[in-house]
């Protein structure tokens, strides 16, 4: 019974970690419809910049948590304005090519600046211990991730559902020109959303780094993982991504526990099953 409790906690904390990693791409791709294959790179960039601040400059973790997302967001902003804008009218395949190119560039930049070795970040002092729950040790940092994940989920859900931003973006996806004709600068909206998506990538990068570390090529793993969670939840809603993160967290954790041989296949199998049964994901809107 109590091992099950432990696995529940593991699943929960892993699920929230997934959510923190995916919420950025959920915003940028799921809601904005921009297929940014460099999103994983922005996440990893967040981790690396965080590493430089925390481990190299010795500044506190919290400082990095505050600064890094903005650094990444500004980089995202520049990418959006200079490179992505022209691709909106060209379509997704051009975005695939462009952002894949970006991911390649980032890959080399990372190894030039931070080397090719594996790096890790220590969690902040006060969370750098484990908490005992029902006789099991659980890292305090993981518990903190659950709390932060909840806050972000609520904020995102609120902005999407309760403000008109979500609606403007959805409108822009179906007819950008018309949105302009109704007096909304849709380019600005897109840029802002991309900014926030990158901000979340940076945030995820900092928050994820104590658990996942960073190493060359990590961005592609993060990317695929995010895309899987994204489609399981369905494009178009943060709620979907949230649900999917937890679902994937639970399924992966428990499958590792009960049928470890299948753990490599399980996420993809889950995704395939979800898509076959519900072709637009669990909570996805038909866009």
């Amino acid at each position, binding site marked *: 019974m109590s091992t099950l409790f432990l696995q529940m906690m593991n699943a929960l904390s892993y699920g929230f970690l997934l959510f923190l990693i995916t919420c950025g791409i959920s915003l940028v791709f799921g809601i904005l419809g921009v297929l940014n294959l460099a999103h994983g790179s922005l996440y990893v960039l967040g981790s690396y910049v965080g590493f430089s601040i925390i481990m190299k400059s010795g500044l506190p973790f919290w400082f990095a948590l505050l600064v890094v997302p903005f650094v990444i967001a500004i980089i995202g902003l520049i990418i959006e304005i200079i490179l992505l804008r022209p691709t909106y009218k060209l379509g997704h395949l051009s975005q695939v090519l462009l952002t894949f190119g970006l991911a390649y560039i980032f890959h080399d930049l990372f190894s030039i600046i931070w080397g090719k070795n594996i790096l890790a970040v220590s969690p902040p002092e006060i969370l750098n211990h484990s908490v005992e729950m029902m006789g*099991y040790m659980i890292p305090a940092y993981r518990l903190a991730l659950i709390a932060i994940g909840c806050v972000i989920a609520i904020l995102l859900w609120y902005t999407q559902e309760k403000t008109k931003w979500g609606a403007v973006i959805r409108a822009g996806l179906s007819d950008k020109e018309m949105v302009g004709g109704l007096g909304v600068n849709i380019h600005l909206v897109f840029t802002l959303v991309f900014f926030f998506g990158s901000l979340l990538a940076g945030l995820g990068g900092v928050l994820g780094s104590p658990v996942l570390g960073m190493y060359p090529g990590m961005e592609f793993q993060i990317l695929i993982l995010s895309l899987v969670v994204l489609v399981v939840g369905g494009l178009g809603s943060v709620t979907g991504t949230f649900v999917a993160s937890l679902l994937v967290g639970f399924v992966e954790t428990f499958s590792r526990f009960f049928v470890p041989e299948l753990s*490599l296949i399980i996420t993809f199998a889950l995704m395939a099953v979800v898509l076959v049964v519900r072709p637009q994901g669990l909570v996805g809107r038909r866009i």
Partner: protein
Amino acid sequence: INTATKSDDKGKKENDSADQTIKIGALLPATGVYASLGENVNNGMELYFEEHNWEVAGKKIEIVHEDSEADPQVSLRKLRKMIEQDKIDILTGPISTAVAYAIRDDVDKNKLPFLVSHAGGNDLTRSKRSDYIWRSSFSSWQIGHSMGQWAFNNVGKKIYLTAADYAFGHEVVEAFKEAYTNAGGEIVDEVYPPLGNNDYSSYLGKMNRDDIDGIYAFFAGSDAVRFVQQYEQYGLKGKIPLIGSGWLVAEDVRPQQGNAPEGIKSSIFWDYSLETEENKKFVEAYEKKFNKRPSIESLEGYDAAAIMAKAIESLNGDVSDPTKIVEQISSVELISPRGLIKFDKDTHHVIQDLYIVETVVVDGSTENKVIDTISQVVDPGK
């Protein structure tokens, strides 16, 4: 067409004897997950040749670098380029066993001397053995097997096995299992998380049981960092001893693990802390040149360079005949920073000492300390 290629072949030989440089092809990953391993092997080679002014037996040494991307397909393409375009005399590399297996036939067909400086697949010196392929690094078997008896004597009678789910992990664990059960130990259970797994909590949950004396783990790179960290975070450290291969606590992953690896015991064929003359000299020179500690891959590069140099020397720099090169390689015997190494002429595999290493905390950070030596381990070759 046949004649065309043949004359091409001849051209190569003539060119070489006239040429005053000896070309060594280094097929190593420069990008992707294994990039840092490739870099370290390279550094080791460079250090050695720099110490010898890039000259052996009066000939200039040139290293031709190609990025293998740790991808067999790309590697094969690069290998062909090095053979045809660069006309290399000796090949070394390649880190990934899959690459080694993939290029094996082409190497063999082209009679290209290939000194494997890192790639653990057992079969390379067993069923896939080639006259032209010699391995100076290690085999999976050596790593795993060496610890079996030791673990039975020093850790306990019941052990839980875990390894990254890929051929290397399985081979190492198999070898350990063989030695350990032969010694009388019992494997309680085993679990294989996928390579590149990011959350070990549920596996650790499975291993967290009272009826075992220890866990034997094979993880490397980022897997090792995460596994060891989470081993501590989930409260197994101090409760269940952890042993494994040296990569679990390698020079380049320990800094990222904090103090989590304290107390882990592992088996490996070289360690930073080895107190021999050769090693001290090597470490010092390496740190001076690269401003960081050598890793085991640096040592592998350094040794491979030394072996090739020795072989070339004994040929007086005449590398026109590949069979002679491999013959000379096979007779190299030297005291390397890792101790005495020589080749087993039957298996083409290196014979070397293996060390049992314990990780301890010194001045707030971790260091490895050699606590036992298993001398001159010979791979059985089948």
